[in-house]
């Protein structure tokens, strides 16, 4: 970790908030990193056992290999969302959010710190799944920069969405609603386990409205050089979505919505 003395005094505020947010999930890493990694590896084990040899989505790509990038990306996205949303809702319910609200931190610094912590948690979980998964199957990487770009933008998008959810929700059950009725359906219906080309036309069209689809497909393109849609289109859609959500979040924070009466 960088020594605090290397940080300029102007950057010390947001840096401290980022450090606190990272320590918060790292202190309970068993729950915040190890648990999602094990869940993803169990999916991998079961689905590859059942479907390996029966399904071939892309020519020459074994089903297990096809599955891994989708599982990684799904976990990156879910954990980025979980980090910012659960931190905010906990601080609000516990009341300790006041410690941050009393400080001179600007809304942009507040946003950046929560966003970076969410990205770091998402990438940490994704990297661990990748390391776990390459024991099962040989994975070639065709476009490493695409993989990195989608992982970064995707976790940023979901981290931002988590901030919005955390600010909006007043109670844990409202937050659970976000998890169960938005994040889970969108991630399961995004083509993690299949190519959307295998779906009937109506469901194909519907899938194209799902932002998770573009993130998963683009990320997978980085591994195989093949996908359901051009990665540049996906990247633009994900990037534009991030900019829109970030703008909304900054507006909310600046107005003090639900945080400052």
């Amino acid at each position, binding site marked *: 970790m960088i020594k605090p003395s290397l940080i300029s005094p102007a950057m010390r505020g947001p*840096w401290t908030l980022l*450090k606190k947010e990272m320590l918060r999930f790292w202190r309970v890493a068993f729950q915040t990193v190890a648990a999602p990694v094990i869940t993803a590896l169990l999916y991998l084990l079961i689905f590859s056992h059942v479907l390996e040899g029966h399904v071939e989505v892309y020519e020459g790509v074994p089903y297990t290999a096809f599955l891994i990038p989708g599982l990684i990306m799904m976990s990156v996205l879910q954990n980025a969302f979980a980090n910012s949303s659960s931190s905010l809702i906990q601080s609000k319910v516990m009341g*300790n959010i006041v*410690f941050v609200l*009393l400080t001179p931190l600007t809304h942009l610094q507040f946003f950046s710190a929560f966003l970076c912590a969410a990205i770091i948690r998402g990438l940490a979980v994704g990297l661990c799944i990748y390391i776990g998964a390459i024991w099962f199957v040989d994975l070639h990487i065709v476009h490493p920069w695409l993989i990195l770009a989608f992982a970064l933008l995707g976790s940023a998008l979901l981290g931002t969405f988590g901030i919005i959810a955390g600010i909006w929700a007043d109670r844990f059950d409202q937050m659970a609603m976000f998890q169960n009725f938005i994040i889970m359906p969108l991630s399961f219906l995004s083509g993690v386990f299949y190519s959307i080309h295998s779906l009937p036309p109506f469901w194909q069209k519907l899938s194209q409205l799902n932002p998770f689809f573009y993130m998963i497909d683009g990320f997978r393109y980085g591994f195989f050089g093949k996908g359901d849609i051009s990665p540049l289109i996906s990247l633009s859609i994900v990037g534009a979505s991030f900019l829109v959500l970030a703008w909304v979040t900054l507006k909310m924070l600046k107005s003090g919505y639900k945080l400052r*009466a």
Partner: protein
Amino acid sequence: MNPAIKISGIHKSFGNLHALKGIDLTIERGEFFALLGPNGAGKSTLISILAGLMKPSSGDIAVMGFDVVNQYQKARQLLGIVPQELVFDPFFNVREMLRFQAGYFGRGPENDAWVDEVLEGLGLADKAKTNMRALSGGMKRRALIAQALAHKPPVIVLDEPTAGVDVELRQMLWEFIKKLNRDGHTIILTTHYLEEAETLCSRVGLMKQGEIVALDSTQNLLNKFAGKSLRLTLGDVSLPSNIQALVRNQDRGIFTFALTDMAQIEFVLSALRNANIKVIDMQLNEADLEDVFLSLVGSHD
């Protein structure tokens, strides 16, 4: 030099409730100021606006000349606010929390010595490595105060810091806060314990239903509203006219006289002697803020 805090025409409404009705208040640097008032008077709302936790409906507040809305970064840098609610972050220990809190204000390792001084001064030194969750209620309260002080703010606001706190901590806390005040920190205190305000604070503001109804030095308030009170049991008599004006209360032969100085005692007694009225029992009470408080807040509504 700008005053520590300048509050001008602050109004705050929550729907139909007009919680603050035009507060004007200036607190000079180095003051030890008490803000008193019954529950619902608007003290905490005023402090929340000062802290930036709420936005005023109109009016403005400046901390050492910096507006709490338009120049919030500079204003908050100068403020240390102890919230009323006993909140804590369960993930960290006491020293970590203090370092984080100082860090949010841009303080780095050079501030660690001050953090240790705060821990020492509030009797938290041996709890520095204890998780916040494991602290007793009193210790959590100390940690909350320490957090507000972590960045060494020149203006310190304590919103009912001693609610539900034992005597030992109160003593320790006030010793430490008095020392900070001697070192030049401005202290603003809201409390329900009137004797605390009386012994500690040089000036008092009294709030009632969103307005400041009294604002003066503690001594002047005591003199003006209460002075000393002399309770005489005299029986069923009619008082000589020259002392009737001093009577504040009369109840079944017990007369309470409001006096501004001790010389008036002899004046009352000699008037009674001249009128041949016998004193059956006598009691002399020093005024306290409670009397001021009650006479301003109590009976009128």
